[in-house]
């Protein structure tokens, strides 16, 4: 069934992509359009390009002392910082240009050259010869200067639009780790990474995706650690995307997934620069999308949901304990209601007698079967959660009051649901929040198991679990088995799974990520450094 579905969708995908490329061929071929040298032609061309874009500013200047040279300054109002523009572009052109001789014969230089080298005191200036590139620059907030009689345009960096400042991440809060989170602007995000990994080996390749949005996408990796084939795969998948818009990293995530129809995500995301930096150092590739505070990292393994950056900042025993708690939480939040239903409906003999008495007493006279009860409660919880997320904060509190008091308390009092079921639902809910990456997909597993438990009891749970496990083992993320290091088993990789071994024991980089090329430097830590060596008895 799955295969057929994916085949259908795959077919459609192919059609889409072929039509997309056709469209792309019409519209945007990398053909170079020269810049008109005649100032009137140029004005007409610029006007035509930005026809009815009423936030465009096209300003004509005349610079020089004696024989004025006409220049065109083009920028978008709102995308540029006007102070920068005034002080570092307009002022030099209009005032300082009177001192600098603009004689063409001097040093055989062109006027553009003089303007670029001698006049503008802005830090970043690009020479452009392609008109389309000029348009791109204007659109991204640069100011483009066209000069009369020259086919070279100058783009000066005057970007200055309203952005959010670096803030605490909402989805992953930390106690001991860095409190910085990614923001929406691309350059700030790359700077957050660059500040943490200060090596020229940190490569950030940039590309533009989205026919209409022209979103900037950066592919970051640490050369020497990363497996080259993964980088190539990421770039090739990204470059195949032909889509109108990329408004968030989620779009990219969906389009480069290994198993698009699977529940499990094979691309991870994070809002924390320190976490992404850690992943880069493990040999992963990060994908930074302009406009999204979530940076994608691939390959994504099953175990990643259980690892938080906090684990590596706290002591190994504490971190290991919390790791194990997370595994327990994962199991509870998947199996909680299903197990309860199986126990109450099928396997009462397994439950201790006194517990049976309690449950039987609580269930006495209830109108619904345990399954229906679990289903209703589970559904209610999902509704409450969704309401709580989307609501503005003050209203969100009202939702939780209604949820906790009215539904929980009243439904027991009224005899609609039993207290044990409410307890099971509540603990399931709490546990599902512990594993944030899987919070959204756990309900699917939970309901599947619930149905199986209602049909076949523990056997049903076992069957569905087996099927799920088979699926997990069949998944791959950018060529890396999703269940690594459990399957295929890598014993040294287990040091960072159920427990978090002391850092000085994990001296090699993850094998499954970095590959096993003999030339690669796999050791991330000096072998002989362990705390025992600092005894002080020299």
């Amino acid at each position: 069934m799955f295969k057929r579905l994916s085949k259908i969708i795959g077919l459609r995908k192919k059609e889409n992509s072929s039509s997309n490329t056709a469209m792309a061929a019409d519209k945007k071929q990398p053909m170079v359009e020269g810049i008109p040298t005649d100032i009137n032609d140029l004005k007409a061309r610029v006007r035509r390009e930005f026809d009815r874009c009423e936030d465009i500013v096209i300003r004509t200047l005349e610079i020089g002392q004696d024989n004025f040279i006409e220049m065109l300054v083009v920028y978008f109002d709102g995308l540029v910082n006007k102070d920068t523009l005034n002080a570092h572009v307009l002022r030099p052109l209009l005032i300082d240009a009177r001192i600098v001789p603009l004689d063409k014969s001097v040093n055989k230089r062109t006027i553009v050259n003089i303007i670029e080298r001698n006049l503008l005191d802005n830090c970043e200036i690009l020479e452009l010869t392609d008109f389309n590139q000029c348009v791109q620059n204007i659109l991204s907030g640069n100011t483009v200067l066209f000069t009369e009689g020259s086919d070279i345009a100058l783009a000066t960096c005057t970007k200055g639009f309203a952005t959010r400042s670096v803030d605490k991440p909402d989805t992953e809060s930390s106690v001991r780790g860095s409190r910085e989170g990614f923001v929406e602007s691309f350059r700030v995000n790359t700077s957050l990474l660059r500040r943490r990994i200060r090596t020229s080996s940190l490569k950030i390749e940039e590309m533009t995706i989205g026919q209409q949005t022209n979103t900037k996408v950066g592919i970051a990796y640490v050369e020497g650690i990363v497996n080259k084939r993964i980088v190539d795969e990421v770039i090739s998948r990204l470059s195949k995307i032909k889509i109108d818009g990329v408004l968030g990293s989620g779009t990219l995530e969906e389009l480069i997934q290994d198993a698009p129809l699977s529940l499990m995500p094979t691309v991870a995301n994070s809002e924390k620069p320190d976490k992404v930096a850690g992943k880069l150092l493990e040999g992963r590739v990060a994908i930074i999308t302009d406009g999204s505070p979530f940076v994608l990292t691939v390959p994504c393994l099953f175990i990643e949901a259980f690892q938080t950056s906090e684990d590596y900042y706290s002591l190994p025993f504490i971190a290991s304990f919390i790791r194990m708690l997370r595994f327990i939480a994962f199991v509870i939040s998947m199996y909680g209601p299903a197990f309860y239903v199986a126990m109450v409906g099928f396997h009462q003999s397994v439950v201790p007698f006194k517990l049976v008495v309690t449950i039987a007493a609580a269930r006495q006279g209830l109108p619904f079967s345990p399954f229906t009860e679990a289903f209703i409660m589970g559904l209610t919880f999902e509704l409450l959660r969704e309401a709580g997320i989307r609501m503005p904060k003050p209203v969100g509190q009202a939702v939780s009051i209604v949820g906790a008091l009215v539904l929980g308390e009243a439904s027991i009092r009224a005899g609609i649901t039993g207290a044990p079921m409410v307890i099971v639902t509540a603990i399931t809910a709490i546990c599902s929040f512990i594993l944030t990456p899987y919070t959204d997909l756990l309900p699917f597993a939970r309901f599947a198991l619930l149905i199986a438990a209602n049909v076949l009891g523990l056997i049903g749970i076992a069957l569905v679990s087996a099927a799920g496990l088979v699926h997990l083992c069949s998944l791959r993320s950018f060529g890396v088995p999703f269940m690594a290091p459990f399957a295929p088993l890598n014993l040294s990789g287990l040091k960072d799974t159920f427990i978090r071994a002391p850092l000085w024991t994990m001296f090699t980089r993850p094998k499954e990520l970095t590959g096993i090329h003999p030339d690669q430097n796999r050791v991330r830590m000096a072998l002989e450094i362990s705390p025992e060596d600092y005894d002080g008895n020299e």
Partner: protein
Amino acid sequence: MNKIKLPILAVAFIAILFLTGCWDNNDVSDVAIVTAIGIDKLEDGRLAMTWQILKPEAAQPGMEGGQAGKAYTNYTAAGLTLNEAHKELIRISGRKPFYGHIQVILLGEKLAKEGIAEFIDIFERQYEFNQTVKVLLTKDMTAQELLEAESDLENLPAIHLMNLVEANIFTGKVIDLPFFKLVMELEREGRSTVISALSSKSKNDKSTIKEMQIEYAGIFRKGKLIGYINTVQVQSLLFIANQIRQTLITTEHPLSPDKQISVEIVRGQAKREVSLSEGRIKGIVYVDALARIAEVHETQYSLKPDIAKIIESETAGRIKQNLVTLIDMAQDNYGTDIFGFGELVYKNEYGFWKSVKDDWDEYFVHMPIDVFVDVKIKRAGLIDKPSKAR
């Protein structure tokens, strides 16, 4: 997978979802949770089965029990077979029984006398049945009567009865016989079963479990009750069977005979052996017990090693005397092998066993059995010398 099979499979899977009620999905609130079963033989030869059914709403801890009433109710029905009675019980109670949490099975005296082996078939056949349930006999009353008795300690009499058996690990005077073990003992050659029996202290008052006691144990030969032994003899039997966890031996103090001393056995290890010599089987019982002084009324002597020796030998003597009494009783009065010497012969001397297996009990009656008891006192509690009023 071809095109036709897929929809069929899909339909089948979806159909399963609606079949849930037809399989053995029984909601815990819809079944009758049977906590105890009593089986009696009626005068007309039919079998009566009594269920003690839990009423969960009254049994739940934390709820106001006053108005809820009794936490259980008893249903009795009779039939030619236990299954007949079982179906009849479903008919009159309107609920499917759930046998997974039975605490005790009570066998009526009349049934026991006429043979129990053939009536436990139903419990072996039922897959749902809890095989570790305790088995008890009722002496001088029917199982039904006993189940009517209320408990002032527990809200379920069945729990109270089970606790009486479980407390054996502290007293060493009750035989803790799970159902599966009873089946094994009945089936095994060269061993007779002994089951503890509940009886009423007074003839008339049978209304509460307080009035009941496990004072006797019934001896079975070939699945039929032939007589009773008392608690001291049960203690001795448990010594020989190596089932003593803790028990108390009280004797006169060896140095001042009018004062009592209690010695608590904290670990009793017994070994039975049989040896074949000159065509005769001889049984040997070794008992190795670790003990501590539990209570001393005599105030003169502190527990010096030489005094401890004397107490040890006195205690060992008492245990040995009890064991010999029980062995004599089994051989002379009941003439059946309740110790399982036959089993040992079967295991160790199979050639000889073949010649005596048909009338092992007759052979057992004349079998010499030697008893060796060794007691070691390890501790005397917090004091070694009793306090004395001066």
